[in-house]
């Protein structure tokens, strides 16, 4: 079966700050990141749509002990964001002092951008991830 949206296509769009998802023609649910079936009904009638890239922070952590090769990035903030379209998406939070972030950040509105992880000896090359920033 063909993929409606591949990992590469999704990643390439995110590199342009465009967040792509899949809208189910059977139940209307949005699936993001892409899967081969609808995340709600497992249907296969999926259409690629561009999402708002906006949402609300649900939880966060500030990583102080990083994995090998990412020492220069630490400390950094990881967030789970509930997108306005429903799904949750993991990303980093930029534009804040990582050491000052507290639970007060939960519920704040954010918009998506992106950052590149150049890859390491274990990853299959370069990877892109959402980099959220607080809405004004």
């Amino acid at each position, binding site marked *: 079966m063909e993929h409606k949206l591949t990992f590469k296509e999704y990643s390439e769009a995110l590199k342009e700050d465009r967040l792509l998802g899949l809208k189910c023609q059977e139940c209307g649910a949005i699936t993001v990141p892409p899967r081969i079936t609808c995340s709600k009904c497992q249907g296969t009638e999926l259409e690629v749509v561009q999402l708002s890239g906006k949402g609300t922070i649900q939880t966060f952590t500030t990583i102080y002990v990083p994995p090998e090769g990412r020492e220069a*990035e630490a400390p950094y903030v990881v967030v789970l964001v509930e997108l306005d379209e429903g799904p949750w998406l993991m990303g980093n939070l930029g534009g804040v002092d990582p050491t000052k972030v507290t639970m007060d950040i939960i519920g704040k509105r954010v918009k998506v951008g992106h950052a590149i992880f150049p890859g390491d000896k274990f990853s299959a090359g370069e990877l892109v*991830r959402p980099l959220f920033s607080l809405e004004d």
Partner: protein
Amino acid sequence: MRKVAVVGVGMTKFTGAQSKTAVELFAEAAMDAIAESNIKPRDIQALFVGNALSDIAEGQAQVQVFAADYLGLDHVPANRYENACASSSAAFRDAVMWVASGAFDIVLVGGTETAAKMGTPLATRTFAAASDSRYEYPCGLTFPGVFALLTHLYSRKYSIPLERLKRQMAQVSINSHYYGARNPKAQFRKEITMDDVFNSIMVAQPLQLYDCCPFSDGASAVVLACEEKAKKLSDKPVYVVGLGQASSGNLASQKDYLPRLIARELSAKQAYSMAGLSPKDIDVIELHDCFSIATLIALESLGFFEFGKSGEAVERGETKIGGKIAVNPSGGLKAKGHPIGATGTAQVYEIVKQLRGECGERQVEGAKIGMTDTLGGDGGTICNAILARGW
């Protein structure tokens, strides 16, 4: 399906970085299990090994076939299970099924890992490979990070202020170290205080070092036999009466359940249902306390306490020996150590020893039924087993 019993158990001491190979560690544990079972290596018909990282830790794939050869097994089928921290629990479940099916009468199952040897930066990187390499690792997510995200969700969901929750979590670690100090096989044999926890370094906010289990080297092994053989081999066979296993995708994909982990609830339900038992029947549990918050989440999902209430129960002493449910008398992952591939069958080791009454000053008096709970990844794999005295 035939009844299946544990007839022998073995484990190495769990430690920090040490010099033995994953094969040597496994063989030490396995020979103890084999000796307890009153069999010879040649009586074993199949080998099931949990191991997550030997490819990277030692440049060794297929570690199980070299373990089989080193032990002197008779060219038997040997398979490896990789389910991150739940690797040997998945191996255990399948091994039980193979004996239950009638395909084999006697098998060896266990796990081995040399994770501490890798050092913290590389171990942190390779452990993180058990999260989603496409959508989580690029964000720099680590395993403490996963449970840190869950801690803040838990605090919000159950309206427990973070400071209060952190004290409850610290008590989990204090309890683990109390029992670890009484377990000769444990990596950390020293008690700790609330101050020790709060003065330790921040790993992933709000988790501090003493909220986290260590990197460890070690191995564990179990001999399983069908009922007919078990009765001949052991005066105290421990029957495997319940099993469960379930899976999940990355953390974001579990949004409808968090901070609960749906895989655990499905797995536990399978195990209780197969055993015809409920949480009140369990005398002792070895559960997956990779991080202090993980214990609170597990206790609720396994049905021992109401959602949001397990921290209070821990503070009241209800999870200590003599309380409502004896939790991690081995010292758990926190104090006993967590050589990830070996952890599941090390939990089985402790439960079997507890049911036989061989645990000395950490003995749960009169324990008849015990349970294990093992988690791999962001709740990617969760396995449960229920074991009962056969005498």
